[in-house]
């Protein structure tokens, strides 16, 4: 490749991912086009059959005037970025050939669950990519420290070609630094939001503890399953997933209290970042909090009431801590990602000496 020429980057993904993956890619494309010639290739996998494109991705593509390409059998680029290989878990053949100097597989899903249980059939997914690609370098790109840990543990426990490496830096989700100012009068108004999947929710005892009667507000967005439960507390305000805007939801709360099933972990935790950006204190489990390096409060469910009570009593500290968290979030800025991205693709394309 000639010096000064912009490397070609091919994004490969199933655009049907409804949540974090599509949001992450949408934000990433806005940055990637500044440093490379981008093309986006869609996979029609058995995980999301029917050729859907997630709305957030569709909007980004429209803004960037990028036409998504379906049914391509051969993809060639300096760098191929395959987002979220778990989309291949229900099939045996990827159905296309990838040619690249550097093939980067972004591991949006953890390879293992807490405790080490397999999160999906990783071998099956990576093997399809391995067999369907010719590349000088093949890398796995974890999205967070926790995600890296699951990837490295899996690699240590499973025989897989040594030609694959793990990128030394995290392929993090991008967050704009358009942060909202925290309230100066925080109240005990709590909430959580997620897709309604069972992995996203802790058991009822934990939910009861985190959203008690004493709180002024308990808002749960994505409570589709809970809403079918007869004995749900009357002091919970429940909304189905997507039934109100995220802005409306954040207007109702001052604290995000986010715990999942203990047998599952967020790989990145966009919900945490979204809350911090919205000027809200985020409380979650220590592993999930570690991604944000001081931005989120790592705690156990039984500590939640005390933490919130302290902030309600000390509004100044609330505002300080939100701003500190927002500062921590700036490491996920478009600029930070752009610098990292540029370095990686230039290196891959052989233009970075």
């Amino acid at each position: 490749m000639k010096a000064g020429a912009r490397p070609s980057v091919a994004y490969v993904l199933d655009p049907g991912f409804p949540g974090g993956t599509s949001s992450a890619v949408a934000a990433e494309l806005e940055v990637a086009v500044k440093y490379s010639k981008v093309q986006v290739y869609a996979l029609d996998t058995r995980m999301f059959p029917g050729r859907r494109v997630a709305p957030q991705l569709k909007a980004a593509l429209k803004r960037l005037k990028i036409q998504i390409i379906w049914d391509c059998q051969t993809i060639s680029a300096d760098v191929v970025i395959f987002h979220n290989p778990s989309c291949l878990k229900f099939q045996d053949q990827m159905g296309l050939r990838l040619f690249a100097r550097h093939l980067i597989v972004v591991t949006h899903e953890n390879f293992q669950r807490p405790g080490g249980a397999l999160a999906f059939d990783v071998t099956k997914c990576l093997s399809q990519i391995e067999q369907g690609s010719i590349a000088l370098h093949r890398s796995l790109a974890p999205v967070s420290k926790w995600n890296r840990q699951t990837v490295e543990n899996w690699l240590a426990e499973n025989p897989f070609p040594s030609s694959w490496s793990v990128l030394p830096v995290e392929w993090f989700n991008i967050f704009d630094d358009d942060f909202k100012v925290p309230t100066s009068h925080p109240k005990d108004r709590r909430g959580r939001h997620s897709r309604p999947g069972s992995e996203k929710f802790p058991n009822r005892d934990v939910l009861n503890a985190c959203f008690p009667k004493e709180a002024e507000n308990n808002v749960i967005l994505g409570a589709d399953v809970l809403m079918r439960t007869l004995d749900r507390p009357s002091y919970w305000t429940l909304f189905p997933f997507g039934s109100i805007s995220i802005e409306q939801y954040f207007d109702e709360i001052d604290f995000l209290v986010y715990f999942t099933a203990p047998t599952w972990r967020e790989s990145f935790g966009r919900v945490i970042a979204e809350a911090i950006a919205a000027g809200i204190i985020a409380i979650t489990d220590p592993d999930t909090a570690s991604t944000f390096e001081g931005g989120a409060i790592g705690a156990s469910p039984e500590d939640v009431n005390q933490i919130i009570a302290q902030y309600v009593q000390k509004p100044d500290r609330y505002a300080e801590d939100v701003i500190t968290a927002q500062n921590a979030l700036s490491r996920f800025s478009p600029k930070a990602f752009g610098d990292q991205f540029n370095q990686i693709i230039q290196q891959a394309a052989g233009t970075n000496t």
Partner: protein
Amino acid sequence: MILLCCGQISSKHFDALALFALQLESRGHQVMIDQRFMPEDVTKQIKFEAAPFLVDVEDVTPTQVLIIGAEEISEEVQRLLSLHSFESAPPVHVIGDFKDVQTEVNARNKVAYAIGREPDLFDLAAHRWSPFVEGAIAPLLSAIDDVPQQQPGDRSRVLVYLPFEKISENETAIGQLSVIHHGQDVDLHILTNAKGKDAIASSRYAELSVFGYSELPPGDLLHYFDVLAFFGVNIPGERMAVLALNAMGAGKVVIDCTETSAFIQAGAPVVKGPVQLEALSGYLLDTVVRNRSEIGQRAQQADWLKQFDMALLERNLGVDTPQMKTLPREPQTLFLPTNGNGLGHAQRCALIAEEMAEDRAVQFAAFPSCVGLLQDRGFPCVPLVARSDQHTEEFAADLVNYLRLRNAVRAGDQLVFDGGYVFDSVYRTITRLKISAVWIRRGLWRPGQVQSVALERERAFSQVIVPKEAFEELNTDYTLGPAVKKVGPIVGRKRLTADEKTNLRERLSAHFGHSFETLVVTMLGGGVASRRAAQTQFLCSLFAQRRDCLHLVIAWPHAVVANSLYGWENSHVVQTSNAAELCQASDLCISAAGYNSFHELLYAGVPSIFIPQSAPYLDDQERRARAALDRGVAGLALDKELLHLEREVSAFLDGGKSDAIRQALSELSLPDPGNAAAARLIEEGIRP
């Protein structure tokens, strides 16, 4: 104690839960089904199968939780699993036929998310060479016995599975089965679906013994055959696959007569039989029945069958094969009289029970109308629930009774049923617990009542005791065979002496404040089967004109008595279940002609006018009454013959007919009562 759940909530999954629960129970495990997994649309048969196991998870502390059919776990099931966490944190096992790693991971993950901890996983596919039935939800497993469970002797019991299509396409072939059925070498039963059963019932071969597809669980059907032949295209679903596996494990012969040789193709240790139904007879007699034990033993020893060994699952789950529980008490005989339309069945059972050996524990299970009668006679009694139009399902009461019977009876006990139609509760209890059972079945059915469907459940009983009618021409054989035993009429033995009669009449006079010369007792039935208010009122009006007469109208203790019967001069309503003594002390008894009343009056020599009940579902009371009339030992008035009734009353009380009848009765030769003989037969039927 094992709690069962499944991956989805559907009738198919619930069927599988019931099947698996029954299998585990047969192995001696204490097993339950989480009732939240019961869908709306469950058939009557599956409700009967599942009901004994259903529990509210709030009420139990399981030691293991098994989730079957876990290849696909629905969101609703995840929700249910997440709602209840047992304090004891029992191991949760996810069981399925996982076709690949991802399916296995999916199942494990979904349960892990829901329960908040890691489940154990048992992959049936890992233990199998190939699936026996594609898409089966129940873990297809079987106990494998050491020796074949084959009936000794030359006579073989054969069960033939026939799909409806096979029955409808060739009625002649069913005729061939009928030939086998009537032969000397084979007891033949057919297993088919509801349509097939209806088709046979309405054919010329209605006498064949037919089981419905889910009439009994596979494990319970085992007791009815030594040889099992499958016809049709393929393996007919997982219930039949479980039946085939159970049969192989029990050392029965399984014959593959399917058009695709489906069992052979799957590698099962079965023998290949003819596809044509017509050829089955020769094949059975020439090839199979003589060698059935040896063939069955080879099936038990086959490596293929070991893939389906229930012990494999037990080892993997870490549950020991429990020892079958021994009876915590002495074996007992449980009498179950149907409620019928009066107290006759209960009275009859009580008379027999009173003749049982003193060391034999006797208990009753009876409907509310009979409980008092039985308890008054000293018998402990489990109350049953009577059918009601208020129930949402017509079988609801019988379902509850099934649960009560299962609790009341243990393996080793004996059940004695008295009634015309064998309820599902009775049929299933006998078959499930493999207990010795006796059917007391009095005769004199109306022609239309003699139907194969009413008699087919006789196969569940080891004995049928037929209490005879006093008059020989009234006795008809509905079924024959070594299990059918006849005994004399069942009648009470207590007879009042002349002094006792005088004493009783004096007490009645004092009680009612009415001095009388003539005592008349009227008992025309509870009014359930036939309305008799007009006749009773007519009699009250007759006896109101006789100042020296005391007229007692007998009603059962729980009967609703019409207000119009109160206030008559000389007539009084007496609610009692013990009318025999009043009848013996009377000068005339005007009675329906039910088996018990008729024989009690006859044997006690009481001058009587019979007004037979005529409801179509009752026995033929008019024939019975006419037999007495023809012999000059009773009067007869049909329900609409009120003027004739008036003449008869006058003839009995004024014209000396009572004395003549009393004389004729004293000279009448009657067979010995069968109470004791019936009791001895029941005692002999107790399995060691």
